[in-house]
């Protein structure tokens, strides 16, 4: 199911544009966010909006949603021209934005989440629960999805939350659904399912404006692609005329040739060796070795035990049996402190909640791991040493900020990830575990992060990369470990496996992976 099922557009969908933006410009405090942008979206069309962080994508979405008013240009929806579009107009005309965080109510049921906004916009004052269920069920049927109606949204998976958000949009008679970075938190399998849903929605004549960083997704789902860079439209064309390298070029404005990691095998003693490691309910009988300079990829679907394995190596999740050897010596990694003591660093999957103090400054985030070494005699903090270290890492990892005293949340995804890396690198780890190192990071930044990772390995650090981004793994790793249901399902040396093969092996498990025992 990797090929794009091309839809023969029904006749009535070939009709006029649903949304037309003519020569939209917008500047914020003298900075040109959008410059003469025009866009046409037809009913039932999947339009992808692609661009790096800061390219003006989010401003464009906000203009369509009526949250931001353009300085010039006009907006035509359904043949009606709007000089000034208010959010309520946009909603009434059938424009629905699904934000990255979904804006759901975790404490309410699936049914109520789907129906609530609709009932609110219809000025319903008395809640009839039968009606709520009926509205929700109708929406779920429309996209061909089965979800329990009476379960609180808090307890369902991210992928299901997204479906709830889509249903909520459909209930409001959406004609255009804008999905902002919809796939960031999803696994391969869930993305497939989402794409099926999107095609179903398209069949109903609903247009989808899909904002994404991930090029292979763009190529798969889109009918048309619009790429913007620095607020200008670089290209707006049918997807058929694009491929990955063209997309990358248009997005970044540079021809990026990524060289795969050039690992030269050595016979040095492994930095880290794992023998028959098991953690009941999470993973079983895992063995591998990681030598200096190696980048070992660990992949598998969600629930395959890949993250749990990483957490065990970092001392978070206890193991039941098996051995961890560091430098050939058995090591007891009981907790995070002992993992750090053994020179292990871990960059977590979700940098926003696990990796960064978002409200604290960039510099504080960088030095947090090593603050106890940056002292003067007597134990007081040495500001000059702190500043030196911060300057060093900002430069080394080219963190783009004009002031490291700004809060970490002021940075883009790619730069935030660099701060997390800097934090660990400052403590000079010998083994680095990177869980989803480029999730939610745009293409340009991603490549720069890849360069950083490769350079670290060249310096002799052993790196574990956990990811389900197959091209990334093939590019970075010299060896890839595939996990399924908590077990090793295969080990591949990079030159010997192709992207298609690995993707096939990854999605082979038809039922959701679930650890035995």
């Amino acid at each position, binding site marked *: 199911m990797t090929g794009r099922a091309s839809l023969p557009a029904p006749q009535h969908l070939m009709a006029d544009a649903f949304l037309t933006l003519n020569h939209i410009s917008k500047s914020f405090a003298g900075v040109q966010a959008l410059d003469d942008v025009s866009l046409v979206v037809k009913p039932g069309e999947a339009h992808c909006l692609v661009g790096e962080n800061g390219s003006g994508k989010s401003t464009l979405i906000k203009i369509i949603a009526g949250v931001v008013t353009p300085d010039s240009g006009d907006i035509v929806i359904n043949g009606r021209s709007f000089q000034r579009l208010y959010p309520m107009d946009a909603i009434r005309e059938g424009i629905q934005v699904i934000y990255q965080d979904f804006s759901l109510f975790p404490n309410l049921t699936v049914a109520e989440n789907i129906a609530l906004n609709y009932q609110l916009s219809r000025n319903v004052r*008395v809640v009839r629960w039968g009606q709520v269920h009926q509205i929700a069920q109708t929406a779920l049927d429309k996209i061909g999805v089965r979800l329990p109606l009476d379960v609180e949204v808090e307890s369902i998976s991210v992928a299901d939350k997204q479906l709830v958000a889509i249903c909520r949009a459909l209930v409001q008679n959406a004609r255009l659904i804008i999905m902002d970075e919809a796939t960031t938190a999803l696994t391969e399998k869930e993305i497939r399912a989402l794409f099926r849903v999107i095609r179903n929605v398209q069949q109903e004549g609903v247009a989808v404006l899909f904002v994404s960083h991930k090029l292979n997704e763009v190529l798969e789902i889109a009918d048309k692609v619009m790429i913007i860079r620095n607020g200008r439209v670089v290209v707006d064309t049918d997807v058929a005329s694009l491929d990955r390298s063209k997309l990358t070029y248009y997005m970044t404005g540079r021809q990026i040739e990524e060289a795969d990691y050039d690992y030269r095998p050595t016979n040095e003693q492994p930095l880290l060796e794992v023998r028959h490691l098991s953690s009941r*309910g999470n993973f079983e009988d895992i063995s591998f070795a990681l030598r200096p300079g190696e980048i070992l990829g660990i992949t598998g679907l969600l629930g395959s035990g890949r993250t749990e394995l990483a957490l065990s190596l970092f001392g978070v999740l206890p193991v039941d049996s098996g051995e961890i050897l560091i430098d050939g010596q058995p090591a007891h990694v009981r907790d995070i402190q002992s993992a750090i003591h053994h020179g292990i660093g871990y960059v977590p999957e979700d940098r926003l909640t696990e990796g960064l103090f978002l409200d604290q400054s960039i510099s504080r985030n960088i030095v947090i791991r090593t603050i106890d070494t940056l002292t003067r005699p007597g134990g007081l903090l040495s500001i000059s040493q702190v500043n030196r270290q911060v300057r060093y890492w900002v430069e080394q990892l080219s963190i783009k900020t004009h002031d490291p005293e700004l809060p970490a949340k002021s940075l883009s995804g790619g730069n935030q990830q660099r701060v997390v890396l800097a934090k660990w690198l400052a403590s000079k780890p010998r083994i680095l575990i990177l869980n989803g190192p480029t999730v939610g990071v745009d293409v340009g930044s991603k490549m720069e992060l890849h360069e950083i990772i490769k350079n670290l390995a060249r310096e002799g650090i052993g790196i574990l990369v956990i990811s389900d981004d197959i091209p990334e793994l093939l590019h970075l790793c010299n060896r890839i470990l595939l996990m399924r249901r908590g077990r090793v399902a295969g080990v591949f040396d990079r030159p010997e496996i192709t992207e298609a093969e690995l993707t096939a092996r990854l999605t082979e498990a038809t039922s*959701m992976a679930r650890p035995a025992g």
Partner: protein
Amino acid sequence: MLKRILSRQETLVGVTLLALCLTIGFINPVFWTPGNWFDLARSATVTGIFAIGVLVVLISGGIDVSFTAIAVFAMYTTTVIMNNIGFGGGMFAFFLMSAGIGVVLGLINAFFIARFRLPTLIVTLGTQSLFRGFLLFVIGSKIIRDLPPGMAEYSGAFLFTVTDSRGITVGLHSAVLFLVGVAILAQIILRYTMLGRSIYALGGSREAAERAGFNIAHTQVFIYAFVGLLAGLAGMIYGGLNRQANAQDIVGQELDVIAATVLGGASITGGRGSVIGTLLGVTLVTVLSNSLILMGIPSIWQRVVIGAIIIIGTAVPAIRALRAGRRANVEIEPVLAEQRS
């Protein structure tokens, strides 16, 4: 479905309550006499009305510690005014005035919370001192025992009386009707009106509620005015039942009321809670404190026992939630049906 009912805090509290009643009744059969139950109902009325107000605030993700100050302010001020004008009418007018004063004071809370988006705890801590200080300094601080006639007679307003085998006449006080009415009203508002659902929505995610188009300020004005209304009402009932107006009273009970509400399943972080749970929580705490005397436990120990019950009662669901969260990591399974063909 059964599992979901069993895992609810309400069920847990209900079962505990039942077990407690059976135990106490076994130790001291006086527990099952109508007199004791009428007494319990009387004790639970004021706390229960307060707790319903607290419930609504907690669901919205806020907290209110000023309601006791509002209650005593409204009750005492009403008594003073009625005494001064020599009002000779019935109790209804007292309730009306006291509740009205409560609403006004609640609106002061709402003003700071909705208009300036100040943290609810800070605002209500401030207004608690403010209302109480104003009451004691400006209105008066003496205990009034010489009550207006309507209020003085209220303590005898029984729904019905029974005479037990020993010839003692006991009655169920009509104030309990207020608790029943308030509970039904709150249940209807919370469960069946958009206003009520907006309170849950606000407590679940303020941002999502704003994006959905809820008028958060309106919701908050309602919440704090409603709490004020209930506080004014409960304060007046308290004064009537005790046959005195004491300006030093009531304030200090707020944490016990909040604890009983949380024990009944309301989440301190917002978004969760039910009327039935709150009533069970209040009943449990009331039965416990009344019955410790029946069981012959020294009154000094009462607060220790109640504190322990509250900690255990709120810790059990928290621990269960933690466990469930850990399991969820490996049990995630999308419930996607195959594409319709």
